[in-house]
């Protein structure tokens, strides 16, 4: 499913009692959508950025920047995240440059219902991860 198609279908979609809001982002000037910013109702501060390749859909939520971490706890945090990542359902924890993220990847052939479900779960996971990791942050 192309991002455009996904944007049309997911906009206003109600999943697990939450409604989804979709903002397509056109990165280059040629009108092609390269990223979708999806917000699950109530999780406005934790938008999910969705990109896709021929094979997979990638959903990324930003948690915090490296600068937001108490520097003396950085190693401890990294270790905790590596161990935690295995236990988080449907999402993994990772880092893009200096940005700590929660992400999930799924096949482009995933059913819309399942995509929506994963997005809701990802928002909930992101919030819970932030709550759980709060003590590591400034």
């Amino acid at each position, binding site marked *: 499913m192309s991002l455009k198609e996904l944007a049309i279908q997911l906009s206003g979609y109600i999943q697990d009692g939450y409604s989804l809001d979709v903002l397509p982002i056109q*990165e280059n000037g040629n009108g092609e959508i*390269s*990223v979708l910013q999806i917000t699950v109702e*109530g999780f406005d501060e934790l938008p999910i*950025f969705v*990109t896709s390749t021929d094979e997979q859909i990638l959903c990324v939520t930003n948690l*915090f920047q490296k600068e*937001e971490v108490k520097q003396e706890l950085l190693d401890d945090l990294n270790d905790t995240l590596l161990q935690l990542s295995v236990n988080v359902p449907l999402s993994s924890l990772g880092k893009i440059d200096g940005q700590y993220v929660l992400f999930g990847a799924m096949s482009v052939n995933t059913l819309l219902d399942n995509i929506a479900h994963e997005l809701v779960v990802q928002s909930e996971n992101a*919030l819970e991860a932030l709550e759980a990791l709060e003590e590591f942050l400034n």
Partner: protein
Amino acid sequence: MSIFKKLVTAIRGGAREIGEAVVDTNAIRILEQEIVDQENAIAKAKDALTGVMADESKTARQINAIKDRIGEHEGYATQALEKGDEALALEVAEKIAEYENELAEMQPVLDSYKASVQSLKDQIRKAEKCIQENKRELSVVKTTESVQKARVSVNSSLSSGVSKSSAARESLNRIKERQQRTEDKIKASEELNAENTDAALKSKLEAAGIGKTKSQASDILARLKK
């Protein structure tokens, strides 16, 4: 160098833009072209393979037919010898020799067909492995590109006035506050509902003259008159 190795090198080297180290449009095009080339090669090899396999089985059938005829004529020769007809037996033996020569010519042909079937199958398998490898590399590159795209838009959306050093904490607090408000609202409306039902019941009881009834002026007058 494998894509994974490139990625690790870029990360360890502290590359600011990890994607750029790996995502090279030229490299992607080359990988895609290689995949197409190999798929074409496979298609050609498969065409050739079916042709050679047909030839192989045709030759094998011919060889079997000749072997049958040799066996048959060996029987004739034995019978001629039993009847003491040396001349006839010799004639048959000449025929057998002819067949055997034919067989000796065909056997190498069959062997060469077998060898080319094997070699074509090996080629196809090799190309398939290569395609698989290239596709996997391509998908790592494309995923990296995808991550890069997500990151770029992330950065532009982040610069919306929130101070970088405490953005996550602020987000967390705002979401929690909002959840608390929603919860409060739900609670309030539940309480309101409960009160409404209470009030409704009370007025019904009153109407039925049960419970605390309102003082009526007429009742007061009646009491005073006593």
